[in-house]
């Protein structure tokens, strides 16, 4: 059994970093903040690598099956004997894998930022937030309790909010951070209700218990969850679906993806860490965590997962082809790749060969983290150099930024699924899984794969080839590539992007914990690879040299292009719903109602009293005879009332 303290240190070190830097950073550490944060992160990374080694090779496997280990659990908030929010640590293949991914990418980003963010006014704050995010993400992945994951889920959301809004004086950044938070919050509403549903039927919040109760055939809890229904859909389907909504929100699945492109307002390292490699895959992770329930008790929900994933993958790819802001292109590509992971999960089944999609999804998550982080960091380096996000301001940078260029190329090849880069392996598995289970999705995936290759190389060529770089755009970019702190992370990640594909992932991660043999199917790979190559060639044809070909094509595809360029007007729809419906049709009437009707009623009561008081003042006429008349009437009336009533 592993030592819980070690594992607990992994999230606690970044937390310590956050507290240290957040409370004292501005005053005491100042420019050393980055170094402190990075060192703490490095310790965490080392520990997590150590833990991963230990888990996968020493104690994790019992009788050929990777066990779910819970070295630590503390009842944080007890609702009843069974229901309690625990703070615990789960070790299983995916959580260990995520530990490694998160700490590793985070470390890279920390290092990268040392140079990238240098000289920022709120340098220590940046590192504090970065540490906070890492802490939250690590807490999320090791959660042993569904409520614990929700807690860290929210914390991840808020750190994302803080980091996107890092440049708080830019209105666009403020708006983007708000949007990111609110959209994911909306999704979390689903998550929350899903938790309520599942916990109600299973009677527990603990993952292990919950999964075992809801998957054990014939258990009372499962029976109750399947038989009770709302609107004709069983409770378990509702529960899992609602939880998936939460996941979809964080993972930017259609139609909750709108926040992700805007989130690129944050500093680029942040985009690399949060909006590419780690946080956005939390949704995938969540579905994977509850995969047995999805697969065995709620196959309908899993279907939805599959289709949402597929649609998102395709849609994002289409949009990515039209964007000109390089970070946005990357953002949409992220969304597209996560769509892959999602539908891979969606087409998987529990156990054995049928669980291929699960393994593939996790595999892709792993490789994607590497090459996407690399892409973003490269983009960061480029932006650092050019001081612009627009493709139009770039071109011909391969001479200026040689390391970046190579790293970017590796990443592009990887994402395009060209062997032997890592993306090829994971994507092959995904497509294979889809082919085995659901042909429609396979074709969507295939098309998307081709488009991925196209837009990535469009990006690549536009940045590094196309035309000669014009120095006049920004007179002060004489700092070159930015030294070791910038290039070392790129190199490390590039290596990672290459080698990670060769990891025999099926050995470690599978839906039921036992080993899954994943062979190399050369015959199956021909189609995807060739489509990828075709995409690359088209991109090269169009963008390697400056020409008017792209414009022509885009104008010939007028309607479609425009729609895609405007992201299918989804933002506008949201704006309509929030501004027009929520604000004008709900909020404004509510405020009006409150001020005029509810409040009016109170004031009316007051005024009526005053008015009556004014009206009846004539009784007190000042004439003594009238007083006597009232006296007599009162006396007689009272007597008559008592006598004759």
């Amino acid at each position: 059994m592993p030592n819980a303290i070690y594992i607990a240190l992994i999230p606690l070190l970044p937390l310590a970093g956050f507290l240290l830097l957040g409370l004292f950073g501005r005053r005491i550490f100042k420019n050393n903040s980055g170094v402190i944060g990075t060192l703490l992160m490095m310790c965490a990374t080392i520990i997590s690598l150590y833990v991963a080694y230990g888990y996968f090779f020493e104690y994790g496997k019992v009788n050929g099956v990777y066990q779910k280990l819970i070295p630590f659990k503390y009842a944080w908030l007890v609702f009843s004997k069974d229901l309690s929010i625990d703070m615990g640590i789960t070790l299983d293949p995916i959580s260990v894998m995520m530990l490694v991914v998160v700490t590793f990418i985070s470390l890279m980003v920390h290092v990268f930022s040392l140079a990238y963010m240098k000289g920022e006014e709120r340098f220590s704050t940046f590192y504090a937030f970065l540490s906070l995010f890492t802490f939250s993400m690590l807490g999320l992945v090791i959660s042993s309790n569904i409520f614990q994951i929700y807690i860290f889920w929210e914390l991840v959301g808020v750190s994302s909010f803080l980091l996107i809004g890092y440049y708080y004086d830019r209105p666009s950044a403020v708006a983007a951070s708000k949007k990111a938070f609110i959209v994911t919050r909306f999704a979390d509403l689903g998550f929350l209700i899903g938790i309520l549903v599942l916990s109600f039927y299973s009677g527990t919040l603990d993952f292990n218990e919950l999964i075992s109760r809801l998957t054990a055939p014939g258990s009372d809890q499962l029976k109750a969850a399947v038989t009770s229904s709302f609107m004709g859909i069983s409770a378990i389907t509702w529960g899992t679906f609602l939880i998936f909504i939460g996941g979809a929100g964080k993972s930017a699945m259609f139609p909750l993806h709108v926040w992700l492109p805007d989130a690129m307002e944050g500093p680029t390292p942040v985009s690399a860490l949060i909006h590419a490699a780690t946080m956005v895959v939390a949704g995938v992770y969540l579905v994977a965590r509850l995969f047995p329930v999805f697969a065995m008790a709620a196959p309908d929900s899993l279907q939805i997962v599959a289709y949402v994933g597929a649609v998102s993958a395709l849609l994002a790819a289409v949009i990515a082809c039209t964007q000109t802001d390089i970070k946005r292109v990357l953002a949409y590509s992220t969304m597209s790749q996560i769509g892959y992971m999602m539908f891979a999960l969606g087409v998987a089944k529990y156990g054995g060969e049928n669980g291929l999609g699960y393994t593939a999804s996790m595999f892709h998550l792993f490789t994607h983290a590497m090459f996407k982080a690399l892409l973003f960091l490269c983009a960061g380096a480029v932006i650092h150099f050019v001081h612009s996000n627009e493709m139009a301001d770039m071109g011909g940078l391969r001479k200026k930024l040689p390391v970046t260029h190579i790293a970017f190329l590796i990443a592009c090849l990887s994402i395009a699924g060209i062997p032997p880069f890592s993306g090829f392996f994971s994507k092959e598995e995904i497509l294979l899984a889809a082919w085995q289970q659901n042909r429609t999705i396979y074709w969507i995936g295939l098309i998307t794969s081709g488009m991925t290759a196209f837009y990535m190389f469009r990006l690549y060529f536009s940045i590094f080839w196309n035309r000669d770089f014009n120095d006049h755009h920004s007179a002060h970019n004489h700092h070159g590539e930015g030294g070791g702190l910038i290039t070392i992370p790129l190199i490390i990640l590039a290596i990672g992007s290459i080698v990670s594909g060769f990891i025999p992932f099926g050995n470690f991660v599978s839906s039921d914990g036992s080993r899954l043999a994943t062979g190399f199917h050369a015959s199956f790979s021909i189609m995807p690879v060739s489509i990828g190559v075709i995409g690359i060639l088209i991109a090269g044809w169009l963008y390697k040299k400056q020409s008017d070909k792209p414009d022509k094509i885009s104008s010939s595809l007028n309607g479609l292009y425009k729609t895609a360029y405007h992201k299918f007007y989804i933002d506008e729809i949201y704006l309509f719903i929030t501004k027009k419906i929520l604000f004008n049709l709900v909020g404004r009437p509510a405020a009006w109602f409150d001020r005029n009707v509810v409040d009016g009623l109170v004031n009316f009561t007051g005024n009526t009293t005053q008015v009556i008081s004014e009206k009846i003042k004539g009784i007190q006429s000042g004439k003594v005879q009238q007083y006597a008349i009232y006296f007599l009437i009162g006396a007689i009336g009272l007597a008559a009332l008592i006598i004759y009533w």
Partner: protein
Amino acid sequence: MNLSVLLLVPTLTAIAILLARNANQSRWIAFAGSAIQFGLAFALLYAFSHERTNGNYEQMLFVQQYNWFPAWNISYHIGVDGIAVAMILLTAFIVIAGVLVSWNVIYRTKEFYFLLILLSAGAYGFFLSLDLFILFFFLEVAVIPKYLLIGIWGSGKKEYSANKLALMLMGGSALVLVGLLGMYFSSGHEKTFDVLRLAQLHIPIDVQRIFFPLLFIGFGVFTALFPFHTWVPDGHSSAPTAGSMFLAGISMKLGSYGCLRVATWLMPDAAKEYAPIVILLSAIAILYGAFATMMQKDLKYINAYSSVSHCGFILLGIGMLTKTAITGAVMQMVSHGLMTALFFAVIGMIYERTHTRNVSEMGGLMKVMPFISTIFFIAGFCSLGLPGFSGFVAEMTIFMGSWQNTGLFYRVATVAACMSIVVTAVYILRAIGQTVMGPIKNQDYLQLKDAKWNEKLAAIILILGIIAIGVAPFWLNDLVRPGAEIIMQRIVK
């Protein structure tokens, strides 16, 4: 522990303030008094937990009872259970913070502090009392100081607001009074105001049916039960900073505590019968308050309306009548008290500097006042229920408890309540985004100074409270849950 000390200290402090020779003296006396009380509150917490861990499972601990008006069976009867301890802690936190943020009050300082401490004495007494008569006594003690605080030191249309507040609260307490009398006269031939005695009696259901609504609405007025909440926005917005803090942090809790301790506990059958109405009203309040908040431009109005929404959670928890929901309701009382006090404190700090509370006139305050802006962030995050802060714990407990009620109606109400977390996020982020983030709109703001020591101390005290609950909710849970259990025992029966 002798609970009377908790009453004595504020009373003596108030008298000492009256005897103070100048403004500065009265400030320090108030601070010293509230600091002593703060310490006493923790001593109470310690003593209480100590007793409990030593196996003392009496419903109420540290009970004191002296006959006061034997002719009416009125006694000075005080004691605490976990819920009361939590509320007293809350009060202590807010009082000390309120005293600190009012350091800059220069107009009639002595009177200001006197009223502040008097108000707190009323609140302490209310939470301590186990006799309905003295409970009502303290409830009313707390009304007039509010009126004067708003009317004299307030801003805006303060006289209107003060009047409205005093009259509506008086109206509420009038209903409470009738309800109390009803219970008194239906408590068998002995006729008692004693809460513990009443809790053992079985009041006939017909009587409960009449008096439960009176009591619940009466207390509900204090705690902004829809549609009796209209004093909240006006009152809060017109009050001086400490006034708003006390109003939202303590005064509204008097009502919710009354709803729980008096109405629900003592009349469990009617509570069960009326639960759907309570739930309906509170669910409306939650959503309606949240939506109304979205449209506000004045920071204080934003927080006031959000208080309506948040207090709706309290009532929802009470209405749901499950152990967990009631625990959550009490947690929400504490949490909302601290959070809203912090919010009002920071709004006060901002207002003092910018002289406006209109969000559209501000912007970019982060640049000039990082400390205050950070507090603003924290208050906002707590308000929108972020983990790590108290609001999350309370709300989730309420949701968990509410979900235990099967039945479509309950489910819909719970989901509606859950939905408010999104709306809350919208208006909180809007407020934050417009005030502390973004570019600086008014160049005069560049001269503004950040928080002073007293303001920092006040904020830190409140934040510590919030985080103590948010990070380690188990202590509060352990404190409150047995109390909720006792209440539930009568309901289940």
